[in-house]
């Protein structure tokens, strides 16, 4: 057994193709991004080494920080929406008939392409014929806003479809975790006279803390790299009011042909994602969570 299963040639043959793809298409590019960030480069012609100029430009670029602020706001709202998802999951994981069907219905938006979702919500937010404003007008609102066309509303209007899209995903995760809690633990607490609220806050939440931690990382990092929906719905507009880091990078590189600067933003995005992941897992580090 050992001899056959330790055959180096076979092991290499089984690992090599996948490892090559991941190294060539993920790891080499992230190193290259950092390197290209040191260049003045339009993507086609020769590169010119300019040291840390792109990075210092980045630090002093108010438009970049505006997009970073928007990404940060998205992250905050996504993290806050987890509370709502958790609340729904706790109800759902109680003795609810049809819970399985309900959580599947909740999941549907998450399975659809962000591009299709974006097109659909463009229609929902349509100033004159969308359902939102039709309802508002019928409720007596005289001049409902044009939502995505208003620079003080666009970003918040985009947050709604994001919450809509990911609700089912997080509810599914929380539901599975809650269902994993041994029934005997809940029963014991109940016999000891704990109220349902106490059971939820003192027993269920601590027991699924590890899962909550993972979802916070997923929600925050996911928001920091959010792109598709915004690119289609507003393309960062109006007037940069919904620009986020990924869309800013995309505009700089593939529309403005400043590939050096775009690479610097891409590298910065990578560093932020890794640092945030690290910080959140440190901050939310819990003691022993085994049960």
């Amino acid at each position, binding site marked *: 057994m050992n001899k*056959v299963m330790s*055959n*180096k040639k*076979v*092991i290499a043959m*089984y*690992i090599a*193709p*996948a*490892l090559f*793809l991941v*190294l*060539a*298409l*993920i790891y*080499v*590019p*992230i190193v290259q*991004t950092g390197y*290209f960030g040191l260049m003045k480069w339009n*993507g086609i012609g020769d590169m010119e080494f300019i040291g840390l100029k792109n990075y210092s430009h980045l630090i002093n670029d108010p438009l970049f920080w505006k997009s970073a602020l928007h990404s940060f706001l998205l992250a905050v709202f996504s993290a806050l929406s987890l509370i709502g998802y958790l609340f*729904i999951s706790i109800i759902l994981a*109680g003795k*609810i008939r049809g819970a399985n069907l*309900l*959580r599947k*219905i*909740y*999941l*549907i*938006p998450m*399975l*659809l*392409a*962000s*591009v299709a979702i974006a*097109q*659909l919500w463009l*229609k929902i937010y349509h100033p004159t*014929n*969308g*359902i939102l404003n039709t309802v508002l007008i019928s409720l007596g609102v005289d001049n409902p806003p044009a939502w995505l066309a208003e620079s003080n509303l666009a970003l918040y209007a985009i947050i709604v479809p994001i919450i*809509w899209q990911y*609700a*089912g*995903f997080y509810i*599914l995760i929380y539901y599975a975790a809650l269902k994993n809690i041994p029934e005997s633990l809940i029963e014991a607490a*109940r*016999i000891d006279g704990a109220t*349902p609220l106490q059971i939820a806050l003192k027993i269920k939440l601590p027991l699924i803390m*590890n899962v909550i931690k*993972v979802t916070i990382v997923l929600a925050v*990092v996911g928001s920091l790299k959010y*792109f598709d929906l915004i690119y289609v719905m507003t393309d960062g507009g109006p007037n940069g009011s919904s620009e986020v880091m*990924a869309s800013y990078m*995309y505009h700089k*590189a593939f529309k403005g042909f400043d590939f050096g600067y775009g690479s610097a933003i*891409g590298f910065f*995005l990578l560093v932020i994602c*890794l640092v945030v992941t690290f910080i959140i897992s440190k901050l939310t580090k819990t003691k022993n969570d085994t049960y």
Partner: protein
Amino acid sequence: MNTVKTTGSQAIVNEKKTNLGTNSLFSRAAYGIMYLFLIIVAIFQIFPIIWLFLFSLKNNQEVFNMSPFALPESPKWENYSKVWTEGNISLYFFNSVTYTVVAVILTVVLASMVTFAITRMNWKGSKIVLGLFMIGLMIPVHSTLIPLFSTFTKLNMIDNPLSVILAYTAFNLPITIMILLGFYEALPREVEEAAVMDGASINYIFFKITLPMTSPVIATAAIINMIYNWNEFVFVNTFISSEKFKTLTVGIQNFIGQYTTDWGAIGATLVISILPILLAFFLLSNRIVEGIASGSVKG
């Protein structure tokens, strides 16, 4: 707020017999409120999609002059035949199918080989290699986009389906390995060990024994991969410029641009683009739920 858990028989365990009557009435009301709340959430989740189906079957007169909640007077199926035949939607559709299928097969086979080598074979460095794949989960696509674009340009692979298929495969390998891993670890090794005793080669064991035994988890991994690939946007939008190579997600962008005022056509296009996923969901919802759960939380 979570009184819902003290319904029915549970309440009996919990409460003294004297106040059982009022309490069960109270918890029944609470249960009703909870249920109503969950159903409202379900409506919020599903209604925009139903509305999309409605306006995909309407003409402009119905869209602009009548209530958006109204049913179409007579379903305008011609919206569908129009977008399918007039534009490139059918072409985009088949490109999406091709890229999705090729990338799913490639990803699942390569990921199975890696998972087999990591869980079944003895070698130093297997932990490190697994770690490399798992860290890949955290890398934002946008941080790789410019170098990938430049490398594919140099290799003459830009505006070539191969660039998209390879990118799909590389970026889906980590999550696919993650989904497979749990199943492989729980899978009994006796059959494989017996085959080794009988002198079978590793390739024989992998392709004829292990791979068939893992077909349930392969189905789960494949459906998750299918959803990701079908919905992917950035790679195609960046690497592909010819109409003939575009997928639905990118193609419908241009297409909808031409039809900005024809809501029926836009609706029909969107429904066509989401239909395969909805069908897969109705047929395989348990696998999808399982795949998303096992691919997301491993701590």
